[in-house]
């Protein structure tokens, strides 16, 4: 079923290796980094909003105490 005769054959891509792997490599990198950044942003956002909420709750407590 597999079209290639050897692994080096596969890497060479019939002389088009640079172009083919340059395309696939950059695409893979983008599709790896984009979700990582999106998930990290979501986590920092949640941490920030939680912090703000706690700060607001503390401010409310102070106001009612006075």
């Amino acid at each position, binding site marked *: 079923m597999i*079209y290639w005769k050897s692994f080096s054959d596969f890497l060479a891509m019939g002389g088009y290796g640079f172009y*083919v792997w340059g*395309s696939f490599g*950059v*695409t893979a990198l983008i599709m790896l980094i984009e*979700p990582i950044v*999106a998930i990290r942003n979501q986590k920092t*956002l*949640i941490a920030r909003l939680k912090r*703000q909420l706690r700060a607001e709750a503390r401010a409310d407590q102070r106001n009612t105490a006075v």
Partner: protein
Amino acid sequence: MKDRFNLYRFASPATFYPLAGRLIPWFTALAVIFGLAGLWIGMLVAPTDFQQGEGYRIIFIHVPASWMSMFIYLVMAFWAAIGLAFNTRLSGMMAQALAPTGALMAFISLWTGALWGKPMWGAWWVWDARLTSELILLFLYIGYMALTAAIDDVRRADKAGGLMLLVGVVNVPIIYFSVKWWNTLHQGSSINLTKSSMATTMLWGMLLMALCFWMYSIAVALVRARSIMLERERHTDWAKALLTGDEK
């Protein structure tokens, strides 16, 4: 009418947020499965192209990325139209969540196109109708993101951005039909409803990769939509309940 009511329920961020959270792993899994199957067929099984040799294999990401770059723009324009017509909260968030993925798809399309063009045409870039209109699409995405980011009031940002999306939608048919309307270096479409110019394994590889890109885009856009939703709705009861509770 009960079904209809239920459908509208998901248009509210309070129900959409947890639903999106449950859907993300499924879309991610589908993207991985379709991606592995598509790469297996496209890179290992599919035969060589008689004209372009092995260089043609760039098609397995170039075409799906180009399709997605156009399709995501159309979806964003759809949300913009809904938002402008009915003033719905969710539509602007959806459009903003999709924009970076659309821009990256347009970039992948141009990048892989350049790497394909160099060995086949002898040039990384030519100012031809297909390439130029795709470049304009990338600029439209960047312009939309810059415009919405520059306006502090989110509802006004959504309106201005939505208007820009609707004006720019004219570019999508121009990209799609550019290879027919003008003489261009870019080859015509590889897939036709009636007859296809590709071998079946190649076609399968490309369709599986297109499904992978589709599922990927949905998954990453949902992650971003959740962030936008939570940030905008932080003063509402559901967001506060979620943030004070132990849910992620």
